[in-house]
């Protein structure tokens, strides 16, 4: 059985030694008092000081107490944790990628601009959109950008549209992004089939609606078959249709947001185009739009004139900038490399395989973990642990924790809230039948294990079940805060 490493877990602040760093020109530093206004000089700097080898050991040991896709299956629903091919690591650290400055003269960055230009074109083809900006740093940042575009578009037409509609199954980022852009968020309930309720949508949209945000396939992994009707209702109200690209991995080469009549789409390059998620980032969240929205895209736009690439800032209707510079370039390089390697056919096959894997896994689990709503799913599916809870008191969270003991990452738990005791599973195209079978067997076995064993899990990870309630109550977010808390505790004790 799996057993995760368990090393000394002292904080780096609790280790001590002597730094041996050698910096260029360290022999010629001037007196501190001459370097800054006296009122701004620092008196002390309370950082640890360690030789390099100690720091390396510390973090390598920590890394062994962490689980990634390279360790095993990571079927986190809605997150698309596919295998990240290693050529991306090589390419993103080339000097021509890592060591170029964003303010260099255009003639010295033609390669970088060309890659971005070509990537924009490829993303246009995949999404069926007319223009793409690579600037947003993450999917949610792309949503925010999309909302700013919608606002600028309506404003230009002289319309005051203050509401954005989302289904109750939407990712939390959708309503959060819409609210950040200043919209009132109207949430509509899903229909009994887990899809958008057309009547509810019809009732919710009006001349006040700026956009309707959905993902297709939706968060249950179900394809919204009436998408053209949805588009018609939204467009007849004068609103825009926004595509949350989190689930694009299911449909590449099979359908596209463009043909489904979406107006704005964001991509999650770190999901669909196999760039590593880095423990939570960096990602990249490019946004694609139909022609009518192109004038509003962030500056600069990359344009090709007479064989040279340029950064074009002269866009009078542009929303301006959503972050500094041009986007998460090192991530863009990885995504572009992946698209080249896969080609059009490879991307389509990735979607086919992801959908096959999801449906196969769902089928293998059905006897114990039923998936409500309709049969066919796209790349992910949501099962319910309701029966297990009623019969044995085992909750979805317990199942998730017990899976960790098998050396498998848990699925997403308790989302979407439409399904009671939900486990949201997304195996991706990367996993073999053998791995899927072992994952299914682990889940089935957990259902028949001693409930006490499951409820007290995990047992084989570097720590036991973590008290998240205490973490929120105390909110100790730094060693500084921890030390102060300790000192206060000691004072009280004395």
């Amino acid at each position, binding site marked *: 059985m799996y057993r995760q490493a368990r090393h000394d877990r002292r904080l780096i602040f609790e280790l001590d030694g002597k730094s041996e760093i050698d910096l260029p020109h360290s022999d010629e530093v001037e007196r501190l008092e001459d370097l800054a206004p006296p*009122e701004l000089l620092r008196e002390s700097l309370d950082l640890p000081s360690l030789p390099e080898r100690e720091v390396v050991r510390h973090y390598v040991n920590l890394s062994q107490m962490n689980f990634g896709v390279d360790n095993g299956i990571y079927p986190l629903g809605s997150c698309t944790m596919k295998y990240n091919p290693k050529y991306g690591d090589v390419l993103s650290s*080339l000097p021509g990628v890592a060591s170029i400055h*964003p303010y260099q003269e255009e003639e010295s960055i033609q390669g970088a601009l060309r890659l971005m230009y070509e990537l924009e074109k490829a993303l246009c083809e995949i999404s069926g959109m007319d223009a793409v900006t690579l600037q947003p740093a993450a999917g949610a940042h792309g949503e925010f950008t999309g909302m700013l575009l919608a606002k600028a578009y309506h404003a230009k037409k002289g319309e005051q549209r203050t509401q954005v509609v989302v289904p109750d199954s939407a990712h939390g980022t959708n309503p959060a992004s819409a609210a950040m852009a200043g919209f009132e968020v109207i949430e509509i309930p899903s229909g009994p089939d887990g899809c958008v309720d057309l009547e509810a949508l019809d009732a919710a949209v009006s001349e006040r609606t700026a956009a309707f945000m959905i993902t297709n396939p939706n968060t249950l992994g179900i394809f919204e078959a009436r998408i053209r009707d949805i588009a018609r209702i939204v467009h007849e109200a004068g609103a825009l249709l926004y595509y949350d690209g989190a689930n694009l991995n299911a449909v590449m080469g*099979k359908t596209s947001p463009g043909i489904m009549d979406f107006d704005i789409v964001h991509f999650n390059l770190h999901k669909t185009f196999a760039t590593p998620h880095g423990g939570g980032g960096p990602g990249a969240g490019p946004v694609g739009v139909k022609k009518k929205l192109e004038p509003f895209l962030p500056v600069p736009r990359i344009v090709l004139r007479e064989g040279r690439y340029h950064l074009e800032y002269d866009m009078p209707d542009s929303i301006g900038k959503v972050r*500094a510079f041009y986007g*998460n370039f090192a991530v863009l390089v990885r995504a572009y490399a992946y698209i080249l390697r896969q080609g059009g056919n490879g991307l389509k096959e990735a979607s086919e395989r992801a959908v096959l894997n999801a449906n196969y896994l769902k089928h293998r689990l059905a006897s114990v973990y039923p998936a409500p709503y309709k049969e066919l799913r796209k790349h992910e599916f949501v099962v319910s642990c309701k029966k297990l809870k009623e019969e044995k008191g085992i909750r979805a969270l317990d199942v998730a924790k017990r899976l960790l003991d098998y050396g498998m990452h848990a699925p997403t738990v308790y989302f979407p809230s439409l399904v009671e005791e939900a486990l949201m599973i997304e195996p991706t195209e990367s996993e073999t039948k053998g791995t899927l079978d072992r994952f299914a067997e682990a889940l089935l076995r957990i259902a028949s294990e001693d409930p006490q064993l499951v409820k007290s899990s995990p047992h084989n990870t570097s720590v036991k079940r973590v008290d998240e309630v205490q973490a929120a109550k105390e909110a100790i*977010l730094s060693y500084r805060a921890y030390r102060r808390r300790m000192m206060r505790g000691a004072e009280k004790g004395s």
Partner: protein
Amino acid sequence: MKRAGEMLSELGLTSIDQLFEDIPPEVRINGLHLPAGISEAEVLREIRTMMAMNLDAEGRPCFLGAGIYNHFIPSAVKTIVTRSEFITSYTPYQPEISQGLLQALFEYQSYIAELTGLEAVNSSNYDASTALGEAATMCMRLNERKRFLIPEAMNWEKKSVLQNYCSGPGIEVVEYSYDPYTGELDLEDLRAKVTPDTSGIYVEVPNFFGVIDSHAPLLKKEFPEAALVVGVNPISLGILKAPGDYGADICIGEGQPLGIPMNFGGPLLGIFACRQEHVRKMPGRVIGMTKDAEGERAFCMTLQTREQHIRRSKATSNICTNEALLAVAAAAYLGILGREGLRTLAKINISRARKLQALIDQLDGFDSPIFDSYHFNEFVIRTPLRPEKLNKLLLRKGILGGLPLHRHIRQLPDHMLLCATELTSDEDMERLISALKEVV
């Protein structure tokens, strides 16, 4: 695809197409019009060739700064951040199997807390500009006012990002001017612009001109009602006072100098710290210390009730994917430098910039620096040629020149922002000086 066939037949299907029958014919496409896939060797070759068209700063003098800096990155930083277990993991939703990343992020938060003098730190924003946007909206949450003051002397891109973040909640962004002799903030102008509805005042130390502004420590005393937001270059905090110690409510900054390559401007690392009492109004993901079922120290994501996946449209921000790996890089970098290393590095940066300043000032036609004040590793010069033209001439000699300033500050048409770091060698300076001599 033998296995695929087996899987299909277990599902009672005969073809992959049947898995896509739920997509109505009117919205189906038949494949993508992209070239066929190529081998790994071909991908490596094609992108290497394309990237070789860029003139990179390795082995080439580079005097560009303005938010992104060319610093030395100890090799061990890369060893640490490319650990497969870190780089291929996701947001640590399951803390028991993710302690390594969680602790590394907690240590990042701890380093930033020490540097800034503020106890609550998030585990990253996208970059400094978006951190500023989030800081402005957080100020509004703190005091329910909607007027945010920023320096006129600021990167226009950052201003544009800020405007976009402020447009939703309707925060008015007002600029205060700078002293044309010192490059520091104009305190009289600031006094005139602070009103009872001012939610926050943003000040940069060092500022866009590289000036270490001596007014910063006065602001909280002078304007106690408004939230004080200080923007920093984290390297400078090796010798500069922690903003928390002079009253900052929020401290933000660009973390790229902390062991992160320039990457053509991305990915970057947005630093965000605040006072402990404001923690529940803070944006972004945070890692907290707690215990496991056996009472052992453990870490997990916390205060998630502020976040989008719980609070949805009422969340403090929409951040989901952030820049976690770069936060780990920053922690590793600070670990390797240690307290003496960071102090020395800050001093070297000032010393190198001073040396370059003086060399340029000796040239006919150049004023260097034009602001009479303390500088960190950047400074503004006046040039006898249009800065763009100068840069093109320098580029021909293989030198990446400075940043022409007029796009950012209109009243400085013949001015350039130059940067020197510990990587700026004497030879680099000599090459620049002799090139400048030739052009004027």
